[in-house]
């Protein structure tokens, strides 16, 4: 699914903030990405969802070497990845429904299917009455749920989430994790970056632990 070999990453001409990362996330994995603030969790996720190129090393995603994949083919790979951002990153000029529907619309799905699917997902996350609300009119928790709905609507092969439960109450957090587990059972690989050690322990504790940009531990995975 994902294979990193001696990967390093830097922003611009700055110092390397990720160094010598080598690991493999197998298909169907349910992993956590842990580490202190500034350890490089979000940057590692950026490499995984192809928002940033590595400064060195090899990244293989869905069997494709990213370095040699033509740029025009990267959007096709990105459509197989769902991302939940810590800061939601919703598009403020679009309603909740339009935000959720956007991945399907970009993928060229039929309008009726897109509308129905987006509406169902929003109702599932408890935002049925808010489909026509714009993100600035929603609370942090509501925006988080819209972001989650947007990430999963395309039924991605790989779901990456950065502190997905951080803005949710306990009940909604449990529902979200239940959704992730169900998606995982259906074959979606999940990688969740979190500070929440309790969450990690409750769900098997497999994954990566970063310390200052380096891989300190691989719990239950393939090195």
């Amino acid at each position, binding site marked *: 699914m994902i294979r990193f070999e001696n990967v390093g990453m830097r922003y611009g001409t700055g110092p390397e903030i990720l160094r010598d990362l080598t690991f493999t996330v197998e298909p169907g994995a349910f992993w956590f990405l842990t580490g202190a603030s500034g350890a490089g969790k979000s940057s590692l996720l950026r490499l995984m969802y192809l928002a940033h190129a590595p400064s060195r090393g090899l990244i293989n995603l869905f069997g494709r070497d990213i370095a040699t994949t033509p740029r025009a083919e990267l*959007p096709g790979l990105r459509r197989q990845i769902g991302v939940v951002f810590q800061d939601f*990153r919703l*598009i403020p*000029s679009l309603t909740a429904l*339009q935000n959720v529907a*956007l*991945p399907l619309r*970009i*993928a060229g799905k039929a309008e009726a299917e897109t509308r129905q699917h987006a509406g169902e997902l929003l109702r599932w996350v408890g935002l049925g009455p808010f489909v026509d609300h714009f993100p600035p009119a929603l609370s942090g928790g509501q925006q988080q749920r819209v972001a989650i709905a947007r990430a999963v609507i*395309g039924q991605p092969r790989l779901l990456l989430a950065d502190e997905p439960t951080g803005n949710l109450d306990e009940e909604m957090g449990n529902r979200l994790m239940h959704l992730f587990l169900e998606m995982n059972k259906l074959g979606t690989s999940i990688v969740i970056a979190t500070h929440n050690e309790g969450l990690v322990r409750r769900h098997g504790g497999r994954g990566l632990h970063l310390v200052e940009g380096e891989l300190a531990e691989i719990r239950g995975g393939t090195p």
Partner: protein
Amino acid sequence: MSAGSVLGRDAASRTMPWIVAVMAFIAGLALALSLAVEGAAGRFAAGISGNMTIEIPHAELAGAAESRANAVVAAVARIPGVVSATIVPRAETAKLVEPWLGADLAGSGIAGTALPIPTLVDIRLDTGNPPADGAVAAAMAAISPDIRVDDHRIWLDQLLGWVTAVRLTAGAVLICAAIGIVLTIVLATRAALAIHRDVIEILHIIGAQDGYIARQFQFQALRMGFQGGVAGAALAALLVLIIGLAGLSMRSGLLPALNLGFREWMVVATLPLAAALIAVVVARVVVMRALARMM
């Protein structure tokens, strides 16, 4: 559910139509005035190119001028390509100098003495089969070397030169306005790229092709270019209409009417489309180049 505007409005998108409108106004004014001048000059030239004027110097002896004029008319009438030759009545000739000399002086002269106004013979030519070059001048030289033939060539050449200068100036103004629109769109699109950087990254991450992202900016540029183009062209058209009406009220008979025909108005009406097209193309180029630098 509408697709919604992914980019939304920003400061650049609010300001740009006004700048495009100014450019389109300048372009529209230059274009409309150039077309109006060209049309007026064309009509004026068509009006005089089928004519010649023969100028017979004033003769002191009574009746001498009249007999020379008759001889001229008879000689000219024999030249193939001449449709008619008419002696211009003295009263009409006097009227031509009336604006400069006044009615009394031009008409009867001082103390009843007529001014030495030349006798004019107006010749109408067959424009499809005009006389051979120099035929009229040769016939007049045979009668008297001091008879002048005015085929308006100098005036027409000067008019043509002036129209060419106006067209070149208008073309230069149009090019400057187009460059202004291009630069405006470049700056506005770059500003929009910076403003919407997060949105662009999100679109990328969820799998949008560069073309999809560029189209969002193109739609925005199309709207702003067209809005600005319509406003500027409409204002230019209004001003040209006012100038035309003002010209009608002060026409002296020497100046042709400065107005536009249907074809010319249609050309001016294409300005908003041209502005929108420029905006779309420039926005696409700027965005695609910027996106190519992203992963």
